């Protein structure tokens, strides 16, 4: 790797200028050479399970092929809770599913390993895609999604999603969510990278926060039961291969709880905290891909396990904020990306994978900024944006100003250093338009599911997906769950898992799901919260 220019020097050379032309950019081979999805040895073939033989990111494969955390004996004396629908995960998708399921008359329990609302949803900034502008159509939305996906997707899912978008927004407004409006009361829209029309509706750069707090409030006021700090360690099955509930482990009293449910909806979100390929992440603390492991063990099929989105604009400096997201909307508004020499090097509104790869190329070829301690990146020209649109940061990007304030940097006065950050799981569990998996009784919605985004997601399609599919799954599960609960629940599927692992000569010593990143020291904790420190319950 060629040496980059030091932070101080690059900053000294920077000047805010209103117009910068884009030089010729060579996209040929950019992804293949620089995007982490293409790293040599990044992927392996899965050795067990429904996707045996398929390629999968090596760290993800390790996780999917772990042994379970529990044995049958661990369940002795566990409290049993019965409900109609168990929802695992308390983010946007989980809450949307819970609310519609409850509206449809079902008894609902949300089990979350942190608190209700602790999720990637709350951190989302950009907005929700919905084709409402005069010259825009759902067909265009659909076409943009497919083109950006750059590989086959489940077309029916995408079609369903784009057609449902206006109703999603209506539903969100009726839950009490605000959006930025023009002087006539119409929704304002902005363009996302890779789209042909502006169609992202938003609330400043706090869209996720606004959405999540409204949904949380709606859930708290409803009959939905919520259990906090109860990570799910295993799903429950029966002899016919149905999903019949889950095993929760309470961090409050260190005890297992068995939840018997007629349907289970997994909405556990992403995998950012696995720090794939050593990248920092924009994700929240609990994003460890638990749902993938749980579903896979039960026999669910997954797809696109080799592709992850690296958001181009993750804050690289200061260190304690590394990986923090700067919304794509800043680029939509016109901010440029500059290398250490102050030159543009990519069309900022290309799809994210291309932009991320371009940034990595600049840094690899010596045109990046070196901030010491292994930190590298390029500039996002926020002062240039402010110069062209005075006051835009106060009006549209208050969150970014706050983040800047905490680190002593004013984005209006100096450019911010960014580098791609692990942001989104493009693939996941295969579902139909109601979120149903190939396992009866098991639904997956949100980031944990796959088939919509191909190898590259558009800004605004994720917040759309979670509500669109969350709602449908909630309604479907409430309507079509079996009348009577399952009689005989078991963890029989673990025997099959262990047999497969042993026959494939896999190591049996690592356990999953991971639940929390290693640096939280969850497994080795001394006296505080943890799973079962004592095998015997007190």
């Amino acid at each position, binding site marked *: 790797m060629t040496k980059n220019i030091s932070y101080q020097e690059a900053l000294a050379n920077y000047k805010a200028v209103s117009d910068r032309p884009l030089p010729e950019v060579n996209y040929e081979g950019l992804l293949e050479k620089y995007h982490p999805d293409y790293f040599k040895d990044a992927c392996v073939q899965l050795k067990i399970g429904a996707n045996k033989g398929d390629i999968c990111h090596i760290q993800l494969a390790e996780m999917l092929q772990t042994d379970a955390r529990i044995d049958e004996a661990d369940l002795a004396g566990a409290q049993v809770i019965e409900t109609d629908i168990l929802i695992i995960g308390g983010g946007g998708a989980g809450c949307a599913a819970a609310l519609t399921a409850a509206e449809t008359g079902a008894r609902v329990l949300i089990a979350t390993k942190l608190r209700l609302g602790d999720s990637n949803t709350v951190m989302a900034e950009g907005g929700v895609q919905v084709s409402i502008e005069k010259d825009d159509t759902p067909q265009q939305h659909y076409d943009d999604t497919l083109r950006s996906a750059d590989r086959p997707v489940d077309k029916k899912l995408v079609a369903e999603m784009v057609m449902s978008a206006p109703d999603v927004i209506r539903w969100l407004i009726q839950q009490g969510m605000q959006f930025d409006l023009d002087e006539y009361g119409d929704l304002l829209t902005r363009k996302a990278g890779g789209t042909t029309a502006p169609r992202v509706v938003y609330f400043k750069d706090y869209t996720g926060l606004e959405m999540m707090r409204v949904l949380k409030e709606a859930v708290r006021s409803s009959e939905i039961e919520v259990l906090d700090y109860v990570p799910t360690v295993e799903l429950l099955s029966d002899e016919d291969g149905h999903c019949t509930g889950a095993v929760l482990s309470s961090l*409050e*009293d*260190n005890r297992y709880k068995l939840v018997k449910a007629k349907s289970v909806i997994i909405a556990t979100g992403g995998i950012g905290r696995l720090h794939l390929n050593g990248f920092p992440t924009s994700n929240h603390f609990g994003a460890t891909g638990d749902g993938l492991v749980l579903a896979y063990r039960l026999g669910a099929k997954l797809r696109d396990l080799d592709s992850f989105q690296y958001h181009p604009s993750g804050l690289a400096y200061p260190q304690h904020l590394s990986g923090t997201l700067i919304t794509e909307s800043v680029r939509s508004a016109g901010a440029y990306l500059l290398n250490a020499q102050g030159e543009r090097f990519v069309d900022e509104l290309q799809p994210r994978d291309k932009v991320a790869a371009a940034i990595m190329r600049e840094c690899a070829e010596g045109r990046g900024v070196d901030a010491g301690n292994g930190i590298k990146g390029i500039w996002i020209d926020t002062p240039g944006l402010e110069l062209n649109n005075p006051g835009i940061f106060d009006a549209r990007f208050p969150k970014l100003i706050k983040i800047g304030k905490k680190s002593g940097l004013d984005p209006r006065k100096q450019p911010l250093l960014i580098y791609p950050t692990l942001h989104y799981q493009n693939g996941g569990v295969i579902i139909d338009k109601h979120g149903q998996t190939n396992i009866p009784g098991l639904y997956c919605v949100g980031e944990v599911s796959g088939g919509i985004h191909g190898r590259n997601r558009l800004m605004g399609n994720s917040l759309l997906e979670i509500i669109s599919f969350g709602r449908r799954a909630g309604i479907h599960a409430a309507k079509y769950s079996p009348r009577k609960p399952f009689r005989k629940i078991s963890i029989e599927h673990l025997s099959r898992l262990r047999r497969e692992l042993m026959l494939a000569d896999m190591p049996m010593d690592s356990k999953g799901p991971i639940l929390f990143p290693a640096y939280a020291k969850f497994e080795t904790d001394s*006296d*505080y*919260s943890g799973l079962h*420190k*004592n095998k015997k319950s*007190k």
Partner: protein
Amino acid sequence: MEKTLNQVLLHKNSRVGADYTLWKNGWGGQGLKNAMEHPADIISMIRDAGLLGLGGSGFPTHIKWQAIADQTNTEKYLICNGNEDEPGTFKDRVLLEETPFQVIEGATIAALACGINNVVFYINPNLKTCHEVMQSALAKWLTSEIHNHALQQGLNLKYTIVASSGHYIAGEETAAIESVEGKFPFPRGKEPRPTTSGVNGCPTLINNIETLCNAPHILRNGVQWYRDLGIGEANGTKIYCLSGDVLSPGVYELPMGTPLTELIFKYGQGMLVGKELKAVFTGGPSNTILTEKDLDVNLDFKSVSERRSSLGTGAMIVVSRGTGIVKRVAQYVDFFAAESCGQCPACKTGTYYMSQLLGEIDTGAGKKADLDSLVDLCNILPGGGRCHLLDGAVKVVDSSLYHFLDEYKEALSDDSN
């Protein structure tokens, strides 16, 4: 019981209620008469007698009085603090209800000494009888010969009775000023000091009812008499409020410095049948704990402080074996959390968090992490509020952790040391 009990403030000569004649025929008014003859000597007599603040501070009374006397304003205030809202303290209400003239006489002497012209009797609205009695007594006072004589001597005092808001915090000095001004009793913090700017911006003296009640007697019988009343180096008498698991709870005026064991076992007639003493919450719940080994302590400010505790208001809440200290402390901290005025997050959120932790531990749901947090809070919180409510809450928790850590540990749900 013999001569040491109820010698002065709660003597039958004092406990005449609103009966002016009875009071005057006893020893009523003599102190004020002496004071009016030598007004310039009052403060030095108070100093030499060693009168201390009996509302909890133990602070030398003469210092406060001198500071007010030194102010040159013509408008000054005296707030006679009868808010008394602390669990376990119930002496001021006895003085207000049964010895109103003693209170008025004491206040008048203080006003005379300090050049104060506005006397406010600041009484908790829940003490309805105290209000009624004081109003009746004050009405009589204002038509009495004592008052007339004072007027002729140029002592033109305005007396008012003001009901406090009834909040616990309204008993804090600067909060009382706010309350007298008709506002919510928010403690003001360090500046401006009441001495320079109190009620309506005027120098204001705030004294506890019991403190003021001692003045007439010091002026009546002199400094040496007062000093001789106390045991050892302590001076005067103290009204102790004994409550809890004793046979005879109540108010006992005894020589300052009476040993705790005497208060409990002689005057309080010992523990309720079959119960052993476990602990004593001294000075009420915003204070510290004494245990069996401290039963011999003399109940004066200095001796008690030598045992890592303080006398406070002189309230002694006795707790026997069979009472959970954790639960009791949890109740006290709940009280503080509810009474915090809200201005300082350190106090409101700090006491709230402590009460949550105590509640968890007390109900068997507490973990070692919770106990550690409690200990940690006792280190971080003190001094974080602008008044002492937070410090009081921390003190009692800290003291209970010092004396009864084992009890806390036993209540934990996880088996770690």
